């Protein structure tokens, strides 16, 4: 499968959303011991108090983000570390690592892409009063899943 054609076209033609969903499900199951599935559209909107980001560069250019509310981010950290996860720093670190593993797992599943795509180290933004704008002109896909009953949004934004 060639990576020379436009990435946005390829993402639609090859149906990358199920690949992203699978990458997310595997990370949650293996690292958090929790089976997650995409949420129904009737579920409440994600309260984006925490956003973890990992950049993609090379054959894929863009960003993977994981967004959730503060309580859910804390629950993610507790699932990874146990009750010792109590500081804001650990919560951000845990969510950043989940995002990192989702991005890596996703690109490793795309034939011909993993060799030529690099990941940035994670960045995590916290607080309620922000919005995220990608300057990239391209495409995006998002899956919202339920973790411990709360919605978590995972988004892939690609530059064309």
């Amino acid at each position: 499968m060639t990576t020379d054609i436009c990435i946005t076209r390829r993402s639609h033609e090859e149906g990358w959303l199920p690949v992203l969903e699978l990458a997310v499900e595997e990370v949650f199951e293996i690292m958090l011991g929790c089976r997650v599935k995409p949420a129904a559209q009737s579920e409440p909107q994600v309260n984006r108090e925490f956003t973890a980001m990992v950049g993609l560069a090379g054959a894929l250019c863009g960003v993977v983000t994981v967004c959730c509310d503060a309580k859910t981010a804390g629950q993610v950290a507790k699932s990874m570390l146990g009750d010792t996860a109590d500081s804001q720093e650990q919560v951000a670190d845990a969510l950043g690592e989940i995002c990192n593993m989702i991005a890596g797992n996703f690109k490793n599943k795309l034939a011909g892409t993993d060799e030529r795509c690099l990941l940035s180290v994670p960045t995590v933004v916290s607080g309620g009063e922000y919005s995220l704008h990608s300057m990239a002109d391209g495409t995006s896909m998002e899956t919202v899943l339920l973790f411990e009953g709360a919605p978590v949004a995972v988004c892939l934004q690609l530059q064309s």
Partner: protein
Amino acid sequence: MDKIRALIVDDSSVMRKIVERSLRQAGIELEKVVEASNGAEALAALQSNVVDLILCDINMPVMDGLEFVRQVATVENAKGVPIVMITTEGSESHVVQALSAGARGYIRKPFTPDQVKEHVLPLVGKKS
């Protein structure tokens, strides 16, 4: 098997704790765990610590894991110490680069404790 001394290198403190926990779950008794958040810190830590096993991420700021593996061969304290990479980078080229540089094992994140057991136990002299 005697208790071992491990160096865990990852820019995420959460991942360092998870790797340590996975080692214990694999039945490896740890005498000491030294932590470093990048390759440069790890090289500095090796100047004053003797370890029996190194577990190292690849994508890290300051000095990445591949450069660390290349440079660790020059550290007297660390000659012959087995290095296992634990990373999200799953491409064949990364595996080849890591093994060529001297790593003895390669585990892709996300990983299970069983994978740690499978890759690490043979290197520290205990049968699973």
